[in-house]
């Protein structure tokens, strides 16, 4: 249920200072989702994950999602809430805790489907979707079992010399959720940390994209031009969510809250502890 074409038509209108622009709440973002949709989540592992948006999705009634992610606690939390039908990922990890406990449990219990790609193949899949191409060639994946566990994958031969390469299908998505350090009300997003990850490709690959951020500002002038990662033309909504990536890393605004991450992972191992942990998210206010 992917929507390759962009239908939003509110990309470029100037927003008067003080106007609302595309600003909305996390709950309003979650309310735009429908069961069965494909949702891409930006960030990487336990880094700059749009956790405030993900928690809002957890509180919403949607189910049966396909989640596309360089996976971290976003994937784990959605699995724990039973929102997921399929995960498409090259890994699901908490970085300092190698295995995401809820994702691991969901896989071991056989309650989710899983499509696994190599990180590089995954990137080419995002590029293919962003460029509206039905496939892109990549040498990544050849000679590995990634081909065996993805019987739907194919190879193509170069029309110039015949070299065989993997044909990576597009990782298109209905909705992308990403978290930036800063954004403006028009939907331009800025990262200030060491790595953009692939968030620009996620918003280009998506039918609709929502950006949460640490702070909505009038002028994105805290970093050089190359930090202006997300263009408003790809963005449908902006959510101001201070701390909205926590407990994952959101450098330079804050690092990963390792104690909070340990508490999350520890709680996952015990149903009673998890019920208590989950209550904080169920009752969690917008953040």
């Amino acid at each position: 249920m992917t929507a390759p074409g962009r239908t939003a038509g509110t990309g470029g209108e100037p927003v008067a200072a003080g106007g609302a622009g595309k600003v909305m709440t996390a709950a309003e973002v979650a309310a735009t989702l429908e069961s069965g949709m494909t949702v891409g989540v930006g960030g990487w592992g336990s880094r700059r994950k749009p956790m405030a948006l993900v928690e809002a999705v957890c509180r919403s009634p949607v189910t049966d999602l396909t989640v596309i992610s360089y996976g971290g606690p976003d994937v784990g939390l959605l699995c724990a809430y039973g929102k997921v039908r399929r995960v498409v990922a090259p890994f699901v990890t908490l970085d300092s805790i190698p295995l995401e406990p809820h994702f691991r449990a969901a896989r071991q219990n056989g309650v989710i489907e899983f499509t696994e790609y190599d990180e590089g193949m995954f990137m080419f899949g995002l590029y293919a979707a962003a460029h509206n191409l039905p496939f892109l060639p990549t040498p990544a994946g050849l000679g590995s079992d990634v081909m065996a566990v993805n019987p739907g994958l194919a190879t193509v031969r170069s029309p110039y010399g015949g070299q065989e390469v993997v044909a990576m299908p597009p990782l298109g998505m209905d909705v992308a959720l990403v978290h930036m350090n800063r954004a403006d009300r028009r939907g331009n997003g800025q990262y200030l940390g060491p790595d953009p990850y692939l968030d620009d490709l996620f918003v280009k690959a998506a039918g609709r994209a929502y950006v949460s951020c640490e702070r909505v500002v009038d002028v994105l002038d805290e970093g050089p031009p190359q930090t202006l990662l997300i263009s408003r033309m790809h963005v449908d909504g902006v959510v101001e969510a201070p701390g909205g990536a926590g407990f994952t890393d959101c450098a330079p605004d804050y690092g990963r809250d390792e104690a909070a991450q340990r508490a999350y992972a520890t709680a996952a191992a015990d149903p009673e502890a998890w019920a208590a942990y989950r209550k904080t998210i169920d009752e969690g206010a917008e953040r």
Partner: protein
Amino acid sequence: MARVVPLADAVAELVRDGDSVALEGFTHLIPFAAGHEIIRQGRRDLTLIRMTPDLVYDQLIGMGCARKLVFSWGGNPGVGSLHRFRDAVQNSWPRPLEIEEHSHAGMVNRYVAGASGLPFAVLRGYAGTGLAEHTETVKPITCPFTGEELTAVPALNPDVSIVHAQRADRRGNVQLWGITGVQKEAVLAARRSLVTVEEVVDELDDRRGAIVLPSWAISLVSHAPRGSHPSYSLGYTVRDNDFYVAWDAISRDRDAFTAWMREHVL
């Protein structure tokens, strides 16, 4: 790691007769000084590659350095035809010139594929044009998932890529800014590479919007101040628009062209 050497030594070491050579830089940072050194050293049978061959390729072609041109648009920007290029194609003067014509998007994709170690690139370009009928390096490819027919263009891996930049440090790290083209891709795709620079400095400072080509990706760096004239190097020189206009008259006539090259380049 790149070594910093005089321009004449760099061209002598890197550019050989019969090589495929890409001189890149889009309007801005066009490596004229290096092109002129190739002419002075009398290189022959080159396959010249460039997205927008303009005056520097008109000069190389007119001086008989090229056997073939791989390109996506040729002209004197804002002025008109390249008369030496036209004379070579139409009248084989001073020698025949084979051409391989692509679209801009196709050329960029070819450099990116070359830089990425991929044998070819896939794009939706060329559909509805006659280029595939005339260009052997434009071929259809069928999507194995949808059956859709797309275009595949082969990777470009020039023997030598040459670009001009504002600055390098003494270890050969190169910094360029302003309007960039495919300099990064052209250098990374090439077997050997030369970067000419306006200035060699002890330390590269932070500069908004600048890109850095690391020393380990470059073969040689040469100091060539004003080396992009009549194009420009942002922060150092301005574009000599009058020269582009003047070139039209200089290049229309074989003798006038040859006399000008003798006086100003050889």
